[in-house]
């Protein structure tokens, strides 16, 4: 009798959970999907023509009209109201998509551009969902998409809206995208626009890696992908990394689920102390 063969057999006889295959396929599908959405989102911003279609839709929607009529008219105050895109629901599939609609911005052009982008992305999400539905039902899995928004900051000068998409294919993944608007000037604030040059990428990344390592050292239940010996580690933020600005004027960097840490850590945000980036800022107008 060969003991090693016995051991091999015991090892190979280990119970394999039924859901393993589904989970593996779903994870692969999800990572692939994330990329395809990113690419189309860039294109979407340019397609302002969609807005005409959007305007028509919204006007026909009764809920939207009611919501509009209930808004107090107070000059140039920015209002964010939601427009319920569509809901599909049955046992294994559900979609719930809420689209933010910005009104009252002095710069009508910016508002309509953003609103058109939001609508276009929601439409895409919905189409994508419908396309996947049949396949998933066939596989016997669960498919869900839940999309909406949160107003992170709403001060006299700034409006930060975060739109999230929770994709549930077996287990869920979440992406967050923020838009921060200077209400007074009527401009969209991008991450590069806050800084003199691209040095901020390295500065912020270094700070984050140190912070993550320190948090892991202190707390056992925190894990970030910052092991030096691994093949996938968090090395740098993107030039246009997701971010928002708090009402106190602090920069907050956001990471999607699975971007820098295991799934159980969820969506992650890190407030960057202003002194870390102070010398690189264009001005102290937004970040204080």
């Amino acid at each position, binding site marked *: 009798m060969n*003991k*090693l063969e*016995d*051991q*091999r057999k*015991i*090892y*190979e006889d*280990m119970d*394999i*959970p039924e*859901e*393993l*295959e589904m*989970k*593996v*396929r779903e*994870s*692969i599908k999800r*990572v*692939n999907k994330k*990329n395809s959405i990113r690419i189309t989102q860039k294109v979407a911003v340019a397609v302002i023509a969609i807005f005409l279609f959007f305007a028509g839709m919204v006007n026909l929607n009764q809920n939207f009209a009611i919501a509009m009529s209930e808004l107090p008219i107070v000059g140039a105050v920015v209002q964010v109201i939601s427009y319920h895109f569509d809901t599909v629901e049955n046992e294994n599939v559900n979609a719930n998509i809420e689209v933010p609609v910005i009104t009252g911005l002095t710069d009508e052009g910016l508002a309509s551009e953003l609103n058109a982008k939001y609508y276009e992305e929601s439409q895409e999400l919905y189409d994508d969902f419908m396309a996947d539905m049949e396949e998933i039902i066939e596989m016997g899995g669960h498919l869900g998409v839940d999309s909406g928004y949160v107003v992170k900051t709403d001060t006299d000068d700034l409006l930060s809206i975060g739109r999230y998409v929770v994709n549930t294919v077996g*287990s869920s993944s979440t992406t967050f995208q923020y838009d921060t608007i200077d209400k007074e000037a009527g401009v969209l604030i991008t991450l590069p626009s806050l800084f003199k040059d691209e040095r901020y990428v390295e500065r912020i990344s270094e700070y984050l890696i140190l912070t993550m390592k320190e948090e*892991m050292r202190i707390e*056992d*239940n925190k*894990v970030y*992908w910052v*092991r030096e*010996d*691994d*093949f*996938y580690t968090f090395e740098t933020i993107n030039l246009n990394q997701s971010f928002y600005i708090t009402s106190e004027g602090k920069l907050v960097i956001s990471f999607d689920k*699975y971007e820098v840490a*295991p*799934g*159980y850590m969820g969506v992650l945000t890190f407030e960057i102390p202003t002194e870390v980036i102070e010398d690189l800022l264009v001005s102290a107008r937004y970040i204080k």
Partner: protein
Amino acid sequence: MLQQYLIENREAHYRMAFSYTKNKEDALDVVQDSIEKALRAYKRKDKPNHLKSWYYRILINTAIDCTRRNKRIVLMEQEKMAYFLEKEDQYMNFDLKTAMEKLPNAYKTIIVLRYFEDLKISDIAEILNENVNTIKTRLYKGLKILKIELKEDYNE
């Protein structure tokens, strides 16, 4: 290619994850987290020469990270190591069935990779980021603990 590899070898990957986490839920999480990491790394960097050992490095690192969360498992590992270091030369009356389970991960992983997943010693050294001699020593020790005597030459 990577996607196909992940689907085809999912059970082996699950078993490896489970041997660290000792529970189903965490093992499934490790499998999913590893897929996320691998597919992202694959897009970002040069393609790996040897897919299997490349992926096992990711998988095992993810599994180790996962056990960090569960202090109990980590402590258990340390106690086991201490125990084996102490009682090295004494006869250990293991039930063969649970012998592998009781083996500390540092030894078990190497035996699994070498004899159950048919990887070369040099590949295992690469996966675990250790030198070849360390891997050989640990493999020998692991087999000794299991009271397995090899007719074949494990050095290959």
